[in-house]
Each structure stands twice: as structure tokens, then as C-alpha cells.
């Protein structure tokens, strides 16, 4: 409680300062600047949910703002149902519209997503401009009366500028509150996870589309409510309200503020709400100066206002919180040194960590074929893994090992074949569905959520593995302590020698340590079957040994494991069975030592 209060104190102080403005402003004009600034605050804070939290650069945000404005204008000028109905219709309709736009748009890669949403925004503006019978086109909807706000005891109609100001202040406060609630809860972790690495999220059972849509939809609903206010405030709604020029302002605020930083975005929204008005003294040069200031800011303080906040905090000795989270995701890859695997360090204890391995894990792959670009990567591959077995897939580069893992784990569609897990046909399932069913993989190129801590990485992984209903119920809970789960997380991080790193951004960890975090995430909820893609590649022998011990230990407790690995020493040591691939087909299978002794395996694989 005290901690919450401390974290909220600056925001509450800001709110208090904003509430005082009407009583100290020298003239109502400053209130009207305040109102316009608060509209920008609403839009920017909501927008940052999309661009900062789930990392999708959307040009469609003004569409929802305009939608809200048109909804309010149409309701108020036809049957006048009052503010609450307008807000509800705008929010729900805005959410629905965002889902309709988001489902196709999020299918695109993030670059294309930006341009795709720009396309939607342009079409929305064309609709507003040309659907004369509903929107009035360029003739606008005019004569919108003041908002009628039904309160339990009375009907309130904000008429004076001060009353209008408090209404939008309340909406802005609500927006900030909602956004803070979202990012402060476990769904906030899911937002970061999907932003950092959607592929990893999907392979852990989290559906990136659902997560992104919830952020996109929440931002749309909030923007639409701001639109409702604006319609009543201006009394007129024109196609300009939907114009993409708003996006430029929002982008600028989001980036100058520092993406994913609420305080940065708030500060930038206030600056960019007020600055163009203050620059009015410069008259005709106003916009040119505005652009020049922006350019200089971007070139000299590329991390935005958030960076300035951090520098101030550091100077004041307040640097307790995670510094530079955003910079890690986008900045140059500068990875601090991992402490030398000190020769004095005690060997890591080899015990099976927490949790009971799930029974089962029997996998049957029949007739798997995958071609791309005319190349047959996997050709009619059949193999079987029994429950509790540790089977290694080996073969020269390009033999189809990783492709096989991609097909089994749902990352890559395949041309023919069936995959059966414990008697259930899982061919064509999405990675997320497979993960929930207990089929989990790791990646050769290490995938972790760099802006989250190792603890949070594991929380996200655990949530993703849960059944969907439970997963989403958990998202509504606070992201702080996770009773039950925390003990398991501490246990496994301790065993992997990562206890000291528990609460640092994972992006600050060394390559090997991140690889261990990835492994921990794959077993935090023990799967039925674990697919490991070259866990030892690129790690030093100390960490390699930890991997080897953990793989063996987990398998002894009943976990079925499919291992793809080049380190033959380890492979031969730990595997029950080897499957050798060459050019997409199985050329040998059986007991490790027997297989390795076969002449054609040596020929294909070892070249001797």
C-alpha cells in the first residue's frame, strides 16, 4: 500500500496541480489550452499502450478518436441519449472497430502493420469525407449540444469552460488510471512479452493476436471516449477529426516522451499541447520552429524525455528502479560482460528442480514433408519418440533438423504428414495451442523477453502454459508477487546460478545466462515433451555442463525430450536414441554408439 502510494505520488501531485489550474489561470484562454492539452494526454497515453507497450506503430489511432466524436455527434443531434450512452456506444463500438481493423492488420509484419493501419486510416477519412448522408461530409455535423451527464442525484451539463475542463480532466485521469492498471497487472507483462518477442510468446502459449488486440482495443475505447468529449466541447465534428495529421502529433509525443514510459509520454503530451500555443508569438514561423525543435530533440536526445528523467533520478541517487529498459530493446547490442566463470565457483548442484514432469509425451511423426522455395527441407520423415525418452536429432547443416522442430512446434506450416502427441493428432495446431497442450520448445538463437526480468520471463511462461480461461483470469491480477509461483521461480533460478540476476532486465544478462533463462522458462511448468534446439551452441563449457546436467535430470524425472545438438560428445552421453537426418531424410536411427559407428553416418555427418 505504501509502495503504491509512493509510486502514485507524482501522478497524484500532477493531478492536483491540474485541478488547481482553473483557479490560478489568468484567463479562460489558458483553460482552453489546458483542455486541448488534456485531449492530447488522453490520446497519447492510450496510443502509447499500442506503440510503447505492444510495440505496434499504428496510424489508426485518430480513427477511433474520430469514431467517438461522430458517435457522440450523431446521438446528440438525433435522439440525445446523454453522455453515458454516448461514451458506452463509443467505447464498445471503438473496441469492436479496432478488433475489425486489428485482426487483418496484425497479420502483417510490424513495418507493414504501420502502413496497413495508415491505409485503414485513409479509408476511414474518405468515409467521413464522402458518406454525406451520415457524417455530413465536409459540411460537418454541427450544432452538437453540451454533454448531458446523468448523475445519481441530478443532471449535470458542463457549460462553463471550467466545468468542461474538469470533465476532460476526469476523462484524462480515467485514461491514465486504466492504462496504469493494465500495465501494472500481469497482462502488462504479456504486453511486454509480445512486444519483445511474439514468436517466443506464441511458443509459450500466449496468443500474440489476443494480447495485441486487447491493448489496441483498450486504446481505441479510451480514444473514443476522448472523442465523445471533443464533439461536445467543439460543438462540431468534421472529417478533420479523423485526419491522419493527428497521428503525427501522437507519434511525436510518444517518441519524444520515450516509448513505454508513462511519465515521459505525459510530460511530452503536456509540452506538445502547450508549446505550439506558446509559439504563437512567432506567428507564421510557428510550425517551422516547432518542426526544427522536434528535429533537434530527436537528434540530440534520441531516447526521449524518459532518458532525461532517468538522468535526473541518477543524479539525485534515486536510480533504484530498472533503468534503460527501452534502450535495451532498440539500442546497440552492448552486452556487459558476464562474470568470468570463476574457477573458484562451486559446481552447480545437479538436482531436478521444482515441479513434477507431466506424464506422457509420446510423439509420432509420419510422412512429414516441408518444401520452400523449391527446396525440399524435410522429405517424408517418419519417427517416433516414446513417453519418457530422450531422443536426439543430429545431422549436417541443412539436413532439416530445425525445420522439423519448427513443423512440430507449429511455427512453420508443412506440406504433408501428421504429427500425433499422446494419441491426439496435433498437425496444424498453432504454437500457442501446442504449448498449452504441453509441447514446448526452445530456440537456437536465444529468445527471451529482454525488457522483462528473469522472474517476469518465468511468470509469463507459466501464464502462457495455463488453460486460456485461467490465463486471462490471471492477467487481471497484480504483477507484483505471484504466490506459489515465486517459490518455484526462485528455486529454479537458484539452481541455474541466476539468483542474483532475478530482478535485472534480462537484456543485461550475458548470452549464456539468457540461454539459461530461456531453458528455465521452458520448464517452469513442466511440459509433456520438450524440444531443445541446440542448447549448447555458443555457450561456454561451464554453462554447457549446466545444460547437460539439467537435461539428464529432467529426463530422469520422466520428461520426454527431443534434442537437436551438434555437440556429439554430449549427445552420445545423454541420449537414449539417435535419429540421423541428411538432406531431409532419416538415414539412421538407434542406440547412440551403434548409430555413430555406422559407416554411412560417419560419411554423411563426420566426413570420415
Amino acid at each position, binding site marked *: 500500500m505504501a509502495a503504491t502510494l509512493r509510486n502514485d505520488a507524482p501522478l497524484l501531485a500532477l493531478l492536483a496541480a491540474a485541478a488547481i489550474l482553473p483557479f490560478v489561470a489568468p484567463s479562460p484562454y489558458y483553460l482552453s489550452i489546458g483542455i486541448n492539452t488534456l485531449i492530447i494526454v488522453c490520446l497519447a497515453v492510450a496510443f502509447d499502450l499500442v506503440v510503447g507497450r505492444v510495440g505496434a506503430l499504428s496510424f489508426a489511432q485518430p480513427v477511433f478518436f474520430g469514431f467517438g466524436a461522430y458517435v457522440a455527434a450523431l446521438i446528440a443531434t438525433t435522439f440525445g441519449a446523454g453522455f453515458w450512452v454516448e461514451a458506452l456506444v463509443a467505447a464498445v463500438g471503438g473496441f469492436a472497430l479496432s478488433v475489425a481493423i486489428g485482426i487483418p492488420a496484425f497479420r502483417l509484419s510490424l*513495418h507493414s502493420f504501420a502502413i496497413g493501419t495508415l491505409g485503414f486510416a485513409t479509408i476511414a477519412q474518405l468515409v467521413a469525407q464522402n458518406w454525406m448522408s451520415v457524417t455530413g461530409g465536409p459540411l460537418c455535423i454541427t450544432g452538437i449540444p453540451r454533454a448531458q451527464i446523468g448523475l445519481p442525484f441530478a443532471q449535470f451539463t458542463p457549460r462553463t469552460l471550467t466545468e468542461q475542463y474538469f470533465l476532460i480532466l476526469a476523462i484524462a485521469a480515467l485514461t491514465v488510471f486504466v492504462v496504469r492498471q493494465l500495465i501494472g497487472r500481469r497482462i502488462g507483462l504479456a504486453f511486454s512479452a509480445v512486444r519483445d518477442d511474439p514468436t517466443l510468446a506464441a511458443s509459450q502459449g500466449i496468443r500474440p493476436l489476443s494480447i495485441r488486440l486487447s491493448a489496441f482495443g483498450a486504446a481505441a475505447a479510451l480514444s473514443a471516449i476522448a472523442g465523445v468529449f471533443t464533439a461536445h466541447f467543439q460543438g462540431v465534428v468534421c472529417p478533420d477529426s479523423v485526419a491522419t495529421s493527428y497521428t503525427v502529433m501522437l507519434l511525436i509525443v510518444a517518441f519524444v516522451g520515450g516509448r513505454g514510459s508513462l511519465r515521459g509520454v505525459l510530460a511530452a503530451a503536456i509540452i506538445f499541447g502547450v508549446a505550439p500555443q506558446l509559439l504563437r508569438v512567432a506567428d507564421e514561423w510557428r510550425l517551422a520552429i516547432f518542426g526544427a525543435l522536434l528535429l533537434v530533440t530527436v537528434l540530440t536526445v534520441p531516447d526521449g524525455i524518459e532518458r532525461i528523467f532517468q538522468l535526473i533520478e541518477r543524479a539525485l541517487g534515486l536510480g533504484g528502479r530498472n533503468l534503460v529498459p527501452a534502450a535495451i530493446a532498440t539500442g546497440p547490442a552492448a552486452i556487459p560482460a558476464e562474470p568470468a566463470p570463476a574457477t573458484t565457483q562451486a559446481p552447480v548442484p545437479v538436482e531436478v528442480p521444482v515441479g513434477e514432469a507431466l506424464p506422457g509425451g509420446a510423439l509420432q511423426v509420419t510422412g512429414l514433408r516441408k518444401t520452400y522455395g523449391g527446396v525440399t527441407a524435410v522429405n517424408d520423415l517418419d519417427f517416433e519418440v516414446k513417453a519418457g525418452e530422450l531422443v536426439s536429432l543430429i545431422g549436417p547443416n541443412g539436413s532439416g533438423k530445425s525445420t522439423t522442430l519448427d513443423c512440430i512446434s507449429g511455427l512453420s506450416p508443412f506440406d504433408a504428414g501428421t504429427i500425433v502427441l499422446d494419441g491426439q493428432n496435433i498437425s496444424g495446431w498453432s504454437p500457442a495451442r501446442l504449448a498449452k497442450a504441453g509441447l514446448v520448445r526452445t530456440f537456437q538463437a536465444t529468445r527471451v523477453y529482454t525488457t522483462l526480468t528473469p522472474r517476469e520471463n518465468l511468470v509469463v511462461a507459466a501464464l502462457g502454459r495455463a488453460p486460456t480461461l485461467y490465463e486471462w483470469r490471471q492477467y487481471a491480477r497484480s504483477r507484483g508477487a505471484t504466490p506459489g509461483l515465486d517459490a518455484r521461480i526462485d528455486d529454479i533460478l537458484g539452481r541455474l546460478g541466476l539468483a542474483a540476476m532475478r530482478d535485472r532486465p534480462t537484456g543485461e544478462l550475458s548470452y549464456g545466462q539468457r540461454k539459461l533463462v530461456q531453458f528455465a522458462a521452458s520448464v517452469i511448468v513442466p511440459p509433456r515433451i520438450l524440444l531443445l534446439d541446440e542448447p549448447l551452441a555458443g555457450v561456454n563449457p561451464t554453462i554447457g555442463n549446466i545444460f547437460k546436467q539439467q537435461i539428464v535430470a529432467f529426463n530422469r524425472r520422466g520428461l520426454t525430450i527431443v534434442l537437436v545438438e551438434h555437440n556429439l560428445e554430449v549427445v552420445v552421453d545423454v541420449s537414449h536414441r539417435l535419429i540421423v537426418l541428411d538432406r531431409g531424410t532419416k538415414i539412421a536411427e538407434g542406440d547412440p554408439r551403434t548409430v555413430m559407428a555406422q559407416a554411412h553416418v560417419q560419411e554423411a555427418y563426420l566426413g570420415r
Partner: protein
Amino acid sequence: MELLLNQLINGLTAGSEYALIAAGLALIFGVLEVVNFAHGEFYMLSSYYLYLLMTRYNLPYVVAVPLVIVAMILSGVIFYYLVIRRVLSRSWQLQLIATLALSIVMVNTAIVLSGPVPKYLESPLNSQIVQIGMASISVQRLVVLAATAISFATLYAVLKYTRIGKAMRAVAQNREAAAAVGISVEKVGLATVVAGCALAGVAGALISPLYTIHPGMAALVIIKAFAAVIVGGFGNVTGAVLAAFLIGLLEALVTTVLPSEYADAFVFGGMILVLLVRPHGLFGRVARS
């Protein structure tokens, strides 16, 4: 028939305008991975150069045009050192904001300096009309078509056969590998930005006499050019050029048979459809990863 021929000519002229802008955008994106939101403003800038040379210095059109290209090359150099080089290693979002800011500066400076009132330049070729079949068309329009073709042939030859062109393609495919073989990413970046600006210069010098020159002249063009770059497959110059002509022709066609105000909706609707069916664009190439 006359209508169809006319619309073909119209589509091709509009396509040329989009293509000259889109090619520069695609080049800068392809080689440097920078989304240049200020690119349209360079088209505007070159038109004003032409205006300045022809009205302030009373140069004849044919003399002014090559000088405009030279001025655009110099502007490209300044643009590169002032903005692009400083954001080259930053995130693409930051690059976008930086070029967006530059575009705000350029448009509004133009408004203040030249006044927002449009200008018109008479090219001697504009009043000479020739008859092609049943359609009549100004010589300027034919020059635009020819110059566009020559520009792209030159660009293609440079990229394919010259040392700097190879270096550009190399940087586009793998920047680190280019550095490893001794290609100066800095010099290639400069060459790329300059080439993009020169193409915008060709557009400004040749197309602006057909229309009018004003600070906001690029606003409607650049958005089509972006669509062309996307549909053509990010950074694929040939794809962007083809897509630009496709957009120009589509517009002319849609305008003919449907209420004209919805032509843009077709362009952007089409763009979204293409992206959904082919996320890498119509002409995007995907190497095996």
C-alpha cells in the same frame, strides 16, 4: 476508345510522378532501411528551385532543368549529413520521427518564404499539343514519360554495372558484410540519398510545369508513393516503380467508372489486400532464411 486512350495517358503520367518519388523512397529504404517521411518535400523543393531559377534568374527552361538536378544533388548531400547519417544506427521509429520533423520544417519554411499561394511555371513544351490517335496531349507530358523511362534505365544500369551501384546493393543485403569487404557504408549512404533526391529532382523539374507549385504539393503524392513502395515489396526499387504505374492506372480507371472521390479508397484497399495476401508485397523477394 478515346476515353480509354486518354485514361491510359493520364494513368501513365500520374504513374510517372508516383514512380519517380517511390523509386527514391524505395532506394533509401532498401539500402539504408530508413523510412524517409521527408522525401515528398524534396519533390516540392526541386519545384521551387526550378521556379527560382526561371523567375529570379530568368533562365530558360532547358537550362534550368539540369541546374535543378545539380541543386538537388547538393541538397541531398546536406540532408545526408544533417539528418540521415545521425540516425542511421537508430531504431526505424526514431528515423521516421526525424524525417517527419524535417518534413514539417521544410513545408512550413516554404510557406513562410514563398507564401502559400501556388506558383505556375510555363514550360515551352506545355503549350505544344500533339495528337496521338484520338487523344491530344502536350509535349511536356511526353517528355515526362520519356524522362521517367531514361531515369529508370540509368538507375538500373548504375545499380547493375557500376562500382557504387554494386556497393549499394551490397549494403542493402548485408551492411556488416559490406563493411567487412571495405565498402564505406557512409559513402554508399550518401550516394543513395543523393540518388533519391536527384530522382525527386527529375520529378520536380519535369512534372511541376504540368501542374502548380505550392508547399503542400507533395502531400497527396507521397502517400501514393508510400503505397507503391509497400505494394512493390519494401525496398525493391523495380517493384516500387511497377506498383507506382499500377496505382496511377488503377486511379485513372476507377475515376472513369466510379465516383472519383473513392479512387483513393481503392488504392489503399488494394494495398491492404496485397499485404494480406503477400505480406512482402507483390514483387518482394524472400531469401531462404
